[in-house]
């Protein structure tokens, strides 16, 4: 069931001390700086995007997809391994109707808040403390999905 939930299932057998996770903190810091400096976390930029008044956000997401896809191709082609010597694994994203319903619901929320989940964290760090309320509400939304999951169409 966990695998069909499209979540990050880390089935690696390797056990690391907890402080090994600081490398992900470092990646997050670079990511957060980029979010702010490219104004991806700006409510204004999201408005521009959904009004088709600016290319900026399309450029950011488009470049990210191309660079990501090239990197994935390189990893597969050269059979690169992780820092710990494990082969890099890829899993397929499963499809169900939730992708459509959930996608539409999230899209509506994205335009209202001016943030997908990543920028929510960055807006808080960037000094918009009231977005903590938005984040709490997003956590409540996730919880409500979990509670209603069996009764929702998938």
């Amino acid at each position, binding site marked *: 069931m966990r695998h069909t939930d*499209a*979540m990050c299932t880390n089935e690696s057998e390797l056990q690391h001390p907890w402080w090994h996770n600081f490398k992900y903190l470092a*990646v997050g*810091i*670079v*990511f*957060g700086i*980029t*979010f*702010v400096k490219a104004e991806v976390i700006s*409510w*204004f930029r999201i408005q521009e995007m*959904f*009004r088709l*008044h*600016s290319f900026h956000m399309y*450029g*950011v*997401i488009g*470049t*990210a997809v191309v*660079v*990501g*896809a*090239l*990197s994935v191709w390189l*990893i597969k082609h050269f059979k690169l391994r*992780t*820092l710990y010597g494990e082969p*890099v694994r890829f899993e397929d*994203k*499963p*499809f169900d109707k*939730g*992708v459509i319903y*959930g*996608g539409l619901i*999230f*899209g*509506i929320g994205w335009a*209202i*808040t001016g943030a*997908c*989940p*990543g920028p*929510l964290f960055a807006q*808080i*760090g960037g000094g*918009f403390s*009231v*977005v903590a*309320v938005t*984040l*709490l*509400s997003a956590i*409540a939304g*996730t*919880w*409500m999905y979990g509670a209603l999951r069996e009764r*929702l169409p998938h």
Partner: protein
Amino acid sequence: MIELLKQPWHWSLAGAIIGLTVPALLLLGNKKFGISSSLRHICAACLPANIPFFKYNWKKEIWNLFFVAGIVIGAFLAVNFLQNPNEVQVAEATRQALSEYGIQDYTRLMPSDLFNWDNLFTWKGFVFFIVGGFLVGFGTRYAGGCTSGHSIMGLATLQWPSLVATICFMVGGFVSTNLLMPLIFQWIK
């Protein structure tokens, strides 16, 4: 150098760094780029309430919480040390549309006319913080991912369900901005 960093970054630079997050996480430890999962881990850690969806070993996914903590820290650093002193450059057409809603302040990345604590217990706050946030959290989990998990990680690994998801995100956003937003602002004025 610092002066250069303070300018808003070009979309191609930002896109490249965000794209490189995908191989960085994979090579550091087989982690799949995705941010909305962090919300699920927080539920699983704080209030699993015997719901099957939240009954898993969230401690194994704790890297994801380190990652989002990094995003908070990175944003704090950028805003406090690399802040662009000028107004946000927003397309004139967008400015005009937003001025009808009373949004005038472009000094910060978010409109302070909307996103401030004074609005929390008003209809504005209810729509923009509570309802908006709820839709983001509910929708991303229902869809199995957000902009990072589907639109970037999913598309980069050529997953067709992620393409469907991305199209739905965009359709929802267009409807929300161009059809719902005018109604919302009419109502909360």
